[in-house]
């Protein structure tokens, strides 16, 4: 934490560039709305969550006592906690990696000088569609098309790829794969758009210079495009990792963490503690653990930002 702070301070100093003589109350007035909002509606609830996680009863209800780390050890020894963590890692890791590859491929295709503006515009619009739907709809839609009697099974069977219907969400061996594919579908457009914008920012002279030096398209991609995109890729990957780790609605509304817990994530685990067991203090402890993990990622993010600014 201290480290992150120091980093951020350095970032701030660097970002501000030249020395500024002005020292007035104005900047404080300017950030007041932001600060108040965050303090009341973000920091305060966070403090309550942390307090709950250290208490034997929710702090808003009488009869609680300081419980130390009991809740944490309860959560950490829960037989479903570690499998849920592992699932989350697999789910988030695979989602982010494929988001990145898909986003990059689509962005490169859309950015190709070989196709016209209108054509690019049409494809861009089609490819952005998944991003526009709310999680509840995505879940319903995928349950419909992946159902044993759904169109995907029918299609695969018709072309002879599978012989028996696959219970995509219901079979323990495919469920995690199915939710991951769904999440990939729902999330790649954000990568695609960001990388597309990044590609448009790659100076043409760099490519020309590389071409003059005799570099082929593949080499140009590796030595010119990719290094230029690196900052965006890292930013997006880290943000996406945080968002995917927090994914709740998509999983809850399709598999509910089943079958046999193979799609149980930290988010569904926490939700079940809170709304199934009504064990709010343990749920808070679990939430704090997720938060700690997120903070580790956030520190990397801050580090990266510092380098990007340098």
């Amino acid at each position, binding site marked *: 934490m201290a480290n992150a702070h120091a980093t951020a301070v350095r970032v701030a100093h660097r970002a501000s560039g030249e020395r500024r003589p002005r020292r007035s109350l104005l900047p404080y007035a300017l950030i007041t709305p932001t600060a108040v909002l965050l303090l009341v509606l973000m920091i305060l609830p966070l403090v*309550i969550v942390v307090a709950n996680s250290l208490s034997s009863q929710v702090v808003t*209800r009488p009869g609680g006592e300081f419980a130390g780390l009991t809740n944490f050890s309860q959560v950490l020894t829960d037989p479903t906690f570690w499998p849920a963590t592992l699932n989350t890692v697999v789910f988030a890791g695979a989602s982010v990696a494929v988001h990145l590859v898909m986003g990059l491929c689509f962005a490169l295709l859309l950015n190709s000088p070989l196709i016209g503006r209108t054509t690019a515009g049409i494809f861009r619009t089609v490819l952005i569609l998944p991003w526009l739907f709310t999680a509840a709809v995505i879940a319903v839609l995928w349950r419909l098309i992946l159902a044993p009697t759904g169109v995907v099974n029918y299609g695969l069977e018709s072309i002879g790829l599978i012989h028996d219907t696959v219970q995509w969400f219901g079979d323990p061996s495919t469920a995690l794969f199915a939710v991951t594919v769904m999440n990939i579908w729902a999330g790649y457009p954000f990568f695609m758009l960001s990388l597309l914008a990044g590609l448009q920012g790659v100076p043409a002279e760099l490519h020309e210079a590389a071409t003059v030096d005799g570099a082929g398209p593949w080499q140009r991609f590796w030595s010119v495009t990719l290094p230029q995109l690196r900052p965006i890729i890292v930013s997006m990957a880290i943000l996406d990792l945080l968002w995917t780790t927090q994914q709740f609605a998509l999983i809850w509304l*399709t598999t509910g963490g*089943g079958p046999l817990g193979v799609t149980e994530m930290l988010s569904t685990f926490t939700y079940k503690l809170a709304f199934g067991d009504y064990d709010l203090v343990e749920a808070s402890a679990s939430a704090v653990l997720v938060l700690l993990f997120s903070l580790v990622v956030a520190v990397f993010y801050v580090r990266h930002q510092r380098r990007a600014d340098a």
Partner: protein
Amino acid sequence: MGNGARRRWRVTAAVVALTATVALTGCGSGSSGGGDGKVTLKFSQWWDPELPKGALQGLVDDFEKTHSNIDVQLVSGPYASVQDQTFTNAAAGTLSDVVGLDGAWVSDLKKQGALANLTDLMKESGYDDSQLAAQVKEDGSTYMIPAVNFVYPLFVNTDLLAKAGVSAVPTTRSQFSAAASKVTALGGQTKGWVIPLSTQNPNGIQNDLMSWAWASGGSMLKDGQPDVTNAQVTSAANFVKSLYDAGDVTPGALTLQETDKVTEFTNGRVGMMIDSLSHIDTIKQAAPNLKFTVAAIPTTDGFSGKPGIPYAAWGLGVSNSSDHKKEAFEFVQYLMSKDVNSKLSTLANAFPGNKESAPDFTGADPLYQQAFEIYGKSTPVNEFVGLPTSEELMRDFDTNFQKALAGDQSVEQALAATQAEWKEKF
């Protein structure tokens, strides 16, 4: 931080939060008296979306005509979100004045002190509770009154069974197995039976698994303690597993939800299902040409006792944080009164919670009448009502049973594991 400091910190946090909550909930919750002495009651429930459009509002309007000092505002949503909201609201002390309850919630809500003691309210208003068919009690006092009861009979697609060469609706488990495998043998997407076991909403354990045990007089409790490993539950679980293993069950069972069950049946892809009677209308609306009937749940071969039939209730409770408990109970009384209760139960295809009320069969679906006969011959059972964290109990059972279905463990091991987990929670 020393012990004292720690305590002070905690107490301060609690006091601040509590004062803030208490001070502001008054204006936050809608149950405030208007300037003209009018009281507004909020009534949260999942009934409105399940009844014919506007039906519940009609009952409310009638109530407001005779109680000019009370306004009732409906707070409606589908079951699952009403459940989540009821618990978050209970935690924050903002429960609606009159709450629609599921028997499975009562124990936990009562533990949180969110529900008013109805025994006291009945006494205060001189209410004669002998007309009530049932009351859900905790520690000797009533916290929920079942307004209407739904039975869960066996729904049978008569066309499919006839096509498969099954002439009579099965009444025993072996007849059922045989019928199920014949329907499955029709091929295509057709299956004999469907059971939804999603852990998102583990109701399938109650409605589609335990119902087999209850139908044959079984029980999962003994002296109020879990007894999941007994012969009857074991045989019911083994029976379900045998259907599953034979491939006579709709694929994807482990993540199917209750809505999927009804959808499969509605689309004529499944021969039989155990389901709430309230779904008759929905099914007929969605598939006017589907021919189906309802029957008692098959029993074990040679069973001769009085069969049990699973039921679920739409219950009524009063919020403990309501400022208008008296008016809230007046509304409960109204809904439980003879005529209104008849009307409500007829609208819902359910059976009245008032003993003196009778459902009105004129113009009603013949299946509804048929179910009433089944109801009359059986004992309504739902052992999950009143148990602590009953949804989580079902989820534990579900998780273990899924492992048995997947072949990771035997049914006996699954039940033993469930028993152990349940013991901890009682």
